């Protein structure tokens, strides 16, 4: 197909698929396979504002581009923070970045956690593994405006104690009297003095008022389904439980079609969904 060069024009609007340059300021090793990057805009444009629960598409030169939740504090106007678990090609390349390296970012995309809606209610945050990353901005917001909420609870489960993210921060949070933090691991060496067992086992043990609770859940899909079931068993209505979904994404703007789950595009109708709206879809195998 011959394109006519004389008609060549630059489209007026920037292409939503074109990343903006960001530079790695700091790298923190969280666990054996998980790293946190602090990024700053490298073109002087500053960082776009984001809402807790939104994600970016992170591009590593020559490696590719993947969705990553923004895990910093929405109130921090300067930096973008991502925590990445190395599981494959691109995430591994992200985990190998050093301070000073550049990445491309597109975003933020997706729906936020219902932090506003949770005002005046008890808030139960349940995270599994890397699922704490997209929920950390929620915790920042809850604690920054602590008086606005009822009881605030974080239930967090990982495979082993060595997989626990943000250990210093967790310790700080645990020391607060107005924030209940419960951590459990699937298996642990003898020295571990905390809970052992899947994250669902903690739900009946923490105190909150199910009738006036908003729950936000992120982790592997099976985990989220079991957590939601457990929350429902305690009397939390389906329409006050929120989960964040994961699907293959190539564009994050609704063009590529990869992230569809029935009628939903995870990238734009989610990734955060109200549970009652998505639950029927989760029951269908290979949807």
């Amino acid at each position, binding site marked *: 197909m011959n394109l006519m060069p004389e008609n060549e024009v630059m489209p007026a609007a920037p292409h939503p698929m074109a990343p903006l340059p960001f530079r790695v300021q700091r790298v923190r090793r969280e666990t054996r396979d998980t790293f946190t990057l602090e990024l700053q805009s490298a073109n002087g444009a500053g960082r776009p504002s984001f809402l807790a629960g939104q994600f970016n598409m992170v591009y590593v030169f020559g490696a590719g581009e993947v969705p990553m939740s923004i895990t910093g504090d929405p109130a921090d106007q300067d930096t973008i923070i991502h925590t990445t678990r190395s599981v494959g090609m691109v995430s591994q390349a992200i985990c190998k970045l050093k301070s000073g390296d550049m990445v491309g970012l597109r975003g933020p995309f997706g729906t936020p956690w219902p932090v506003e809606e949770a005002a005046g209610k008890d808030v139960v945050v349940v995270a599994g593994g890397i699922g704490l990353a997209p929920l950390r901005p929620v915790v920042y917001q809850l604690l920054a405006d602590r008086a606005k909420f009822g009881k605030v609870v974080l239930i967090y489960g990982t495979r082993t104690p060595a997989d626990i993210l943000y250990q210093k921060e967790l310790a700080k949070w645990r020391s607060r009297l107005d924030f209940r933090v419960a951590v459990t691991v699937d298996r642990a060496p003898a020295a571990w003095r905390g809970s052992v067992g899947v994250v669902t086992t903690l739900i009946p043990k923490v105190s909150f008022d199910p009738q006036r609770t908003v729950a936000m859940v992120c982790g592997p899909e099976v985990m989220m389904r079991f957590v939601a079931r457990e929350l429902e068993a305690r009397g939390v209505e389906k329409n006050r439980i929120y989960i964040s979904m994961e699907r293959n994404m190539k564009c994050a703007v609704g*063009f590529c079609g990869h992230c569809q789950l029935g009628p939903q595009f995870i990238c734009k109708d989610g990734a955060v969904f109200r549970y009652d709206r998505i639950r029927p879809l989760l029951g269908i195998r290979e949807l």
Partner: protein
Amino acid sequence: MPEHSILQRAHFEQLLGALKTRGYRVIGPTVRDGAIVYDDLNSTDDLPVGWTDEQEGGTYRLKRRGDAALFGYVVGPHSWKRFLHPPAVRLWQANRTGKNIQIEEEKHAAPKMAFLGVRACELHAISIQDKVFLGGSFVDPLYKARREGAFLVAVNCGQAGNTCFCASMNAGPKADFGFDLALTEIIEGSEHYFLAEAGTPLGEEILQELEHRPAENIEVEKAGSIHEKTAQQMGRTVDTTGIKDLLYANMEHPRWDDVASRCLACSNCTMVCPTCFCTTVEDVTDLKGDHAERWQKWDSCFTADFSYIHGGSVRSSTKSRYRQWMTHKLASWIDQFGSSGCVGCGRCITWCPVAIDLTEEVRVIRATDIRTKSMAKETDDGNTGTNPR
């Protein structure tokens, strides 16, 4: 009632001339490798003059007509999406110098393209892709530039193919919107002319540049009866009553296993479909590793990679992929974009190597509706859901 004009076959070349004079690249049907495809047209002679096509599930054949019709066939393996939403597009390039990366957005051609011979179903398909790329909160600027530069000459089908069912999908056979010019070809004995109708001021302007005369009522009526006859000829039909709920409620229907036993997951149906829009991205790096390019390429929900998330594909079975494709076309598209994703062009039936026919699949599911209410089912059955992990 819009005004109609008569354009003689002998003057048809003037239409191509007028478009070219205005700087349009004229693209239309032409015969290549035994099929009618869309490509550049230099003159009317490049059209499939006197050819027609015979289509059936899994079969496509060109045949000589008894006349010299310019548009005496239906749609082939190509659709206009190859020009508005091309199979491969470079989105940007990146260069690395030391620790710095410079990302350069692609300067894209916004060619003025005139599409000659756009069928009613294809006009509908284009408007459906418009919703995908222009109708949401993000706009695809490349699609937009190509779309805005396009001049559409519609041709009303004078006969329907054996795999056509646009009438069932309310997408034809008569072009009723979205064109700049619409033509109906009329051949009677030694007479050969087109009833022309302008749909936009630009279409009107171009029509005025051609030798033409106002149409007589009888000529308008003749065209009308051609449209009616074509509508009666549809080789396939689909009952679309409540089709969204029908398919949503039958996500666990055994028929999906039956299709899966036939489907090769070859992706043909998605490639030929004029509304299928899915893409993937590919990164290319040079040997030194300092230059990278990102390409967007057509992709298909029939591949394993399409739904891959680390740990495995969400849709690992052919059953789930066919179900995704068909329920997307006929059901979830309605929720997403407010209309069906199928215009009844029949391409997916004709070009399926094993002749899988979605109209037949719908018929069987409707006849054996099991209403599992699965999309609305309260599932707490310990099923690990859709995620492979």
